[in-house]
């Protein structure tokens, strides 16, 4: 199998798994207990906290472990606005956030908050001038993702953070897709909160972290035994935390080298497909995008069919087509780019990882071409496109 869906999840790096292994059967202690088994677990946890902090340029005590990116986003957003609800009720976000942020905002809109969704234009990037225009004296939170999970576009976080600071507004960024892929530094990015998740960076699923800048106080959304400074109670997932820590350590070590290697594969893949398939288009900015993200669209083709055919050719990929989603709504990200529904249906996302090779990229270019041709033969839309070759 050729796995090109790394933005959905990544395999656990064998080194990460080795690091986690002792914390299941043998070193199984509860990290909040007094005896040595518990203290050992605590030590492992705190070492992991340092590894996470190091990757993002934070202090260990600014890192809170959570059950994943979704929870981190929820804690950051609800935790801030519930605390500050007496100060204001306005939130600014972008039109292309992950559902963990977007649905949280939608929920808050139903509960007395107002949300501005900044547009991203054709290139998929918010404009700082729009942000400045959107700020009111009721604005209590700005939450804008570092890079988008579907189209990979990178947002001007440091600039946004600067404006947030100047206006004394809390600023959260969802960096789930960026850690380990491009440099992430909480100081340089001027963020107050930052979400990350282990399973996007060769760590295990079900564990993530939230950076909370020293001095920033949040209201918890889950209550219980006071773990993680009361922000995330529940018996600590020690093996998961150790895995997250190790994944961050590896990510930090290999970041630049991996990014270079993967960017090269990405460009080969984009050019290969655009050049060999007529009426194929790239979604999102050509260069201000994640090293590993390729998002394309093919006239006359529906994405779920494309993904299923690629699967039978041994290629794992994803789509923003409505038909592949539970709600039968097309991707809000593609719509935010100004695409028509029918165009959004034809999208294909290929997200690369460090274990992909040039040969795999070549194979995928050919496979996509074949599948697109097969599906266009079935498509009543294709024949209708002026200029398209008709089969006789």
């Amino acid at each position, binding site marked *: 199998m050729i796995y090109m869906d790394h933005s959905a999840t990544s395999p656990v790096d064998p080194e990460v798994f080795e690091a986690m292994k002792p914390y299941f059967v043998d070193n199984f202690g509860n990290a909040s207990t007094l005896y040595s088994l518990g203290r050992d677990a605590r030590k492992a946890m705190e070492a992991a906290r340092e590894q996470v902090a190091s990757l993002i340029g934070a202090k260990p005590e600014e890192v809170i472990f959570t059950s994943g990116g979704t929870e981190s986003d929820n804690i950051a957003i609800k935790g801030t606005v519930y605390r500050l609800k007496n100060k204001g009720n306005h939130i600014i976000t972008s039109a292309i956030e992950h559902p963990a942020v977007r649905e949280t905002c939608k929920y808050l809109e139903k509960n007395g908050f107002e949300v501005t969704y900044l547009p991203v234009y054709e290139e998929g990037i918010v404009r700082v001038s729009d942000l400045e225009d959107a700020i009111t004296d009721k604005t209590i939170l700005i939450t804008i993702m570092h890079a988008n999970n579907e189209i990979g576009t990178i947002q001007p976080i440091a600039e946004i953070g600067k404006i947030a600071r100047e206006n004394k507004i809390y600023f959260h960024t969802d960096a789930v897709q960026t850690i380990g892929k491009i440099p992430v530094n909480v100081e340089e990015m001027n963020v107050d909160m930052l979400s990350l998740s282990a399973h996007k960076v060769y760590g295990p699923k079900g564990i993530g972290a939230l950076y909370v800048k020293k001095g920033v106080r949040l209201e918890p959304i889950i209550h219980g035994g006071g773990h993680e400074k009361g922000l995330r109670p529940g018996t600590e997932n020690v093996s998961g935390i150790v895995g997250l820590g190790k994944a961050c350590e590896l990510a930090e070590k290999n970041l630049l080298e991996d990014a270079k290697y993967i960017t090269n594969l990405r460009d080969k893949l984009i050019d290969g497909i655009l050049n060999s398939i007529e009426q194929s288009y790239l979604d999102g900015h050509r260069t201000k995008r994640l090293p590993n993200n390729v998002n394309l669209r093919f006239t006359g083709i529906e994405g779920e069919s494309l993904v299923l055919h690629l699967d039978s050719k041994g290629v794992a990929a994803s789509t923003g087509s409505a*038909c592949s989603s539970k709600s039968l709504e*097309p991707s809000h990200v593609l719509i935010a780019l100004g695409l028509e529904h029918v165009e959004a*249906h034809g999208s294909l996302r290929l997200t690369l990882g460090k274990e992909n090779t040039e040969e795999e990229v070549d194979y995928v270019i050919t496979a996509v071409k074949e599948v697109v041709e097969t599906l266009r*033969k079935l498509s*009543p839309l294709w024949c209708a496109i002026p200029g398209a070759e008709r089969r006789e």
Partner: protein
Amino acid sequence: MYSDKVMDHFQNPRNVGEIEDADGVGTVGNPTCGDLMTIYIKVKDNVIEDVKFKTFGCGAAIATSSMITEMAVGKTIEEALAITRNDVADELEGLPPVKMHCSNLAADALHAAIDNYKEKMGEKKPEDRCKDICSCGK
């Protein structure tokens, strides 16, 4: 997610294409919603002799189109009209709940083709139809 039978019809769709001198053509769906289906029928002595389809849509949409062409061929017009939306899904050993509308689409397309045949509207050229159904504005 999909049964083996759905996957089989999706991967090896039967009766793909157009019938140039079709006796009935039915198009349903809307590309904006991600699905568009055209079914062509050839009728002789009240029996459906040949069926072909073209579909833009998900795995279920393609599989249900293919399935219904197999189900319709050889049937009388009345028998074909009696094929319900659920029959298609059942014949495919079930569909995920969210995909049931795709089987609706297939049954509807077949029925639309039969209506078209009944109304003797089959004289338009396929090229024109092709233009008519493309509402994506390109």
